[in-house]
C-alpha cells in the first residue's frame, strides 16, 4: 500500500455531501457506460439519482415506495447483464430490502450495486426512524458483498466508478450532510485498500465515513500533546485491508476505531478481529452506543452522541494508557 502524506494540520473545509457526489458520479457513469441503470424508491431528489434520471430517462426506473421489489428487480436486471445501482435512504434500503439482498443478490452473487444515503445520525432533524446506524453491520452480513463507506466527495466519486467496474454485489454508504474535504481532487482509491492519511508512531486512528475528518482533527489535538497519531481511512469495510491494519497494530501498538454507526457491530469489531489475529494491541472504540438517536441539528447530535474529534482523542488517551 502506498503511504500518502496528504497534510499535517487538518483544516475543515466542507465539500459536497457524499450523497450529492454519488449522484454526480452516477450521471457521469451513465454517459460512460450504457449498461448502467438506476432504480430509486421515491427519494431520487434526496439520493441525487434524479440527475441520472434526467439525463437517461430510459435507464432510470422509479419503483415507488417499494424497496423490496426494487432490490429484486435490480437483481433481475443484473442477471441480464445490466449494472444496476439501486438507491434509497440506507435505513429503508437495507432494512426493507435485506431479505431480497440476501436471496436475489448475495446468494447468487449478482452484479448489483446498492447505495444507501442518509446514513448515520448526521442526517439531523428527521430523527431516528430515518437514521441508519446499523447498515454497515447488515451489509457485512451479506456473504460476498463488498461494503464501502467514502469519507468525502472525492472518495465517493472514485469509489462509485470503482464499484461499477467491479464484478459483484456492492453496498456504498452515503451521508446527507456536507462532508469535510479529506482528499485532494483526483486522489486514487482502490476497493479493499485502506489509505494512510497521516503518518504516526504512537497510536493509530482508524475511521470510516464522516469520522475520518474527525480523526484527522483528533490527530492534531494529540499532536499538541506530543502524541504522534497515524490516521487510516478504511473506506472499504469488507473486504477489510488486513495488511494495513496489522501493520498499524504492530507499529503503533494502540488503536482507536471511529465510526458513525452502532459501535458494537460496525467497523470496530472487524478491525478488532484483524488486530487480535495479528498483533494484539490496546484498542478503543468510538461510535453510537446501544441506543437510537433523536432529532436535532447534525452538529448537536454528533456532539451529544460522542462522535467528535475530542471523543476520538480521549479514546486514544485511554488506549495509550493500556499500551504495552
Amino acid at each position, binding site marked *: 500500500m502506498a503511504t500518502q502524506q496528504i497534510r499535517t494540520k487538518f483544516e475543515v473545509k466542507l465539500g459536497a455531501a457524499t450523497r450529492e457526489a454519488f449522484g454526480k458520479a452516477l450521471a457521469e457513469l451513465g454517459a460512460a457506460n450504457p449498461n448502467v441503470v438506476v432504480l430509486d424508491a421515491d427519494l431520487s431528489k434526496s439520493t441525487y439519482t434524479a440527475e441520472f434520471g434526467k439525463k437517461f430517462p430510459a435507464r432510470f426506473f422509479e*419503483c415507488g415506495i417499494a424497496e*423490496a421489489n426494487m432490490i*429484486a428487480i435490480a437483481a*433481475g*436486471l443484473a442477471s441480464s*447483464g*445490466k449494472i444496476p445501482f439501486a438507491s434509497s435512504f440506507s435505513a429503508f434500503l437495507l432494512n426493507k430490502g435485506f431479505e*431480497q439482498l440476501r436471496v*436475489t443478490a448475495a446468494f447468487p452473487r449478482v452484479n448489483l450495486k446498492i447505495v444507501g444515503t442518509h446514513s448515520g445520525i448526521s442526517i439531523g432533524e428527521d430523527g431516528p426512524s430515518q437514521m441508519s446506524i446499523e447498515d454497515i453491520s447488515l451489509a457485512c452480513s451479506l456473504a460476498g458483498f463488498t461494503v464501502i463507506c467514502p469519507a468525502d466527495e472525492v472518495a465517493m466519486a472514485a469509489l462509485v466508478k470503482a464499484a461499477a467496474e467491479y464484478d459483484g454485489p456492492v453496498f456504498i454508504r452515503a451521508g446527507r450532510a456536507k462532508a469535510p474535504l479529506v482528499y485532494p481532487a483526483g486522489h486514487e482509491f482502490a476497493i479493499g485498500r485502506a489509505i494512510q492519511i497521516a503518518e504516526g508512531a504512537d497510536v493509530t486512528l482508524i475511521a470510516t465515513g464522516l469520522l475520518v475528518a474527525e480523526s484527522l482533527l483528533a490527530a492534531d489535538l494529540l499532536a499538541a500533546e506530543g502524541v504522534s497519531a497515524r490516521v487510516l481511512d478504511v473506506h472499504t469495510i469488507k473486504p477489510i485491508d488486513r495488511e494495513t491494519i496489522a501493520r498499524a497494530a504492530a507499529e503503533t501498538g494502540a488503536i482507536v476505531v471511529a465510526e458513525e454507526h452502532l459501535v458494537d457491530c460496525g467497523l470496530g469489531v472487524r478491525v478488532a478481529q484483524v488486530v487480535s489475529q495479528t498483533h494484539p494491541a490496546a484498542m478503543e472504540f468510538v461510535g453510537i452506543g446501544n441506543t437510537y438517536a433523536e432529532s436535532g441539528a447534525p452538529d448537536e447530535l454528533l456532539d451529544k452522541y460522542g462522535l467528535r474529534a475530542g471523543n476520538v482523542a480521549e479514546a486514544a488517551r485511554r488506549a495509550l494508557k493500556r499500551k504495552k
Partner: protein
Amino acid sequence: MRKISDPAQLAAIARQMRREVIQMITEAKSGHPGGSLSAAEIVVTLFFDVLRHDPANPKWSDRDRFILSKGHCCPVLYAVMAECGYCPKDRLNTLRKLGSVYQGHPDVRFLPALEASTGSLGQGLSLAIGMALAARLDHSPARAYVVLGDGEIQEGQIWEAAMFGAKYGLDNVCAIVDNNRIQLDGFVKDIMPLDPLPEKWRSFGWHAIEVDGHDVAALQHAFAEAAAVKGKPSVLIAHTIKGKGVSFMENNPKFHGAAPTPEECARALEELR
C-alpha cells in the same frame, strides 16, 4: 430447441415428469411433491412448446427466461430441464444430497442454467420484471415467464411487483399462478383467502386469463393469448389440483412437503403408468 406442440405428446411428457418427481423425492426422503405435481403441465408446456430457448446454448442472450418463484417445487423443474438436456438425467436421484446440482431449492451456483436462485417466496416476479426490463432496453424479443404459488402471492412484494409491471407496461412478462388452493399449513381459503383472484390482478392492471392448468391445449392457447397482449403484462390463473395424478396425494395438504414412503412411491408409480 425443437418444439413439441402435440397436446397428447406434451401430456405424456408431463406424466413421465410426475414419475421422475415421485422417484426423486422418495429417494431424497424429503421435498415437496404436491406443488411439483400441480405444476407439471405448466412447466412441460413452457419448456417444450412455448419458451424460446436452446439447451446447447443456455446463456443465449435472446432466450426467454423462466423462473420458478415457488422454488420448493424444483423437482418438476429439474426433471424437465434434464429432459431438455440442460443437466444429467441419471443424477436426478441425487436431489438434496451433498454436492448435487439438484439442490433442495434452485441454486444457480450449482446449476448455472437456472435463471434465478429461489426458495424465499415472493421474489420471482420482481426478478422476472428485472429481466424483462433488460430485454426491453436491449431491444430483445426475450420474454420472462414466472411460476408463482397461490399461497406465495400472499407476500406483499408480489403486489409491489404487480404495480411496477403495469406501470411500465411490461407485455413481455407472463406470470402463472399455480392455483392449487393448498399451502403448507392447510387450505389457502383458511390460511389467507385470495379470492377473487383474476379480479385482483385485473385491478392491478394485468391481463388475467383463467385456465385449466392440467389441460395442455388450454395452456397453449392461454400462453398464445398472453403473448399477443400488448401494453400490459399477463397472468395465467391456472386452476390446478395439488398432488395431481396420484390419488392419495390429490388435494391432500399432507403432501405439500412430505416425501412418499417407498410403498407410497410404488403405488404412485403404478397410478402414473
